[in-house]
């Protein structure tokens, strides 16, 4: 098992394509994404909306320790624009 960083991002679903394109451009092409997530934060509750456009998505990106600060700098302006939350934590990657 290898030490890695797990970066979690909760952001509005409407911004996800933009975030993914941004990550991809900077070499972070692997991710996991849970759609249809609800939440409440500084800017109020995600109400869902008639066609679900105002809910959140929960993204997980696993990367090496040295990549994490670059990744965080990519995500920060997105959070500034759209709100949301991002966490960084430690984990061990099961090699296969």
């Amino acid at each position, binding site marked *: 098992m290898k030490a890695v960083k797990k970066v979690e991002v909760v952001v509005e679903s409407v911004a996800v394509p*933009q975030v993914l394109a941004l990550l991809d451009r900077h070499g972070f092409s692997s991710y996991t994404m849970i759609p249809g997530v609800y939440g409440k934060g500084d800017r*109020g509750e995600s*109400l869902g*909306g*008639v*066609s679900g*456009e*105002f809910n959140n998505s929960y993204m997980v990106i696993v990367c090496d320790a040295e990549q994490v600060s670059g990744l965080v700098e990519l995500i920060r*302006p997105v959070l500034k624009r759209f709100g949301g939350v991002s966490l960084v934590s430690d984990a061990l990657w099961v090699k296969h």
Partner: protein
Amino acid sequence: MLDGLLIPAVLFFALGMLAHLVRSDLKFPELAKGLAIYLLLGIGLHGGMELAKADLGAAIEAVAAAFALGILLPLIAYVILRWVGHMDTLNSAAIAAHYGSVSAGTFLTALAFLETKNITYETYPVIMLAIMESPAIIIGLLLAKLTRPRDGAADANGNGQTVAKLVHEAFTNGSVILLFGGIAVGAFALPDGLQKMMPFYDGIFMGVLSLFLLEMGMEAAKRIGEFRRMGVFLVGFGILMPLIGAVFGLVTGHHLLGFSPGGTMLVATLAASASYIAVPSAMRLAIPEANPSFYLTLALGVTFPFNVVVGIPLYWEASLWLAR
């Protein structure tokens, strides 16, 4: 007038509001998405089939009128929001875009009104519905672009949406594709094949609409709690603006396009309605600084219920009055 409230479509909407107000656990957002897709396609198909028989000149006039309304109305809304309401530029631009665009749900409720009363109407408003989805998005975007302080950070990081991207989105969002797609299939497909599909797109249409309006009622009621935070001006705007739009729609329908009272009322309804599906997503991306609870509450919580309950019967009376 009270008669207008006993339209089943309206009653279903009221039932949805009630369900939310008594804090029922009823909800079906997933289903509602499917219903919306069906309704947009169905209205498009129906319109397309009628258009195949229609007059090209009249159709072009309707298209031009729709473009004009889609450009003019958000400008009027912007002026009111900025100079009467002293609202900031970005929120004004975002809200204005919603009022220039249209609400298919409101349009269909107007259709149900006419159907219940067995009133005939022109089919050109269906094309106008499809046309009017997009221009206001672009107007809103331009208003924001022109007034926004240069945002260096966003541009540097490539997060800023380019105008080209948003224009593209304005013309390829799901509602536009479904409406125009339905129109095209309805106009060009072999009539025998269409006939086989009509029990689905025609026969059960009004029933599906009722289920959709039930969900819309719940969504509208969800937003009522936000009224306090919005203040009197904005709630008033959500009622005044559809009335202004309706006047432009009535004039366009009756005087410019020469429609029957049924058709005139449909144009008035289009002009009076505010988008709550396509435009909110587009504005959230294009103008993230604007407060979504303002525009969602206005379009869904104020203007939609107002149009369904008060507006549509009113626009109908006005159309009748014009036709006298």
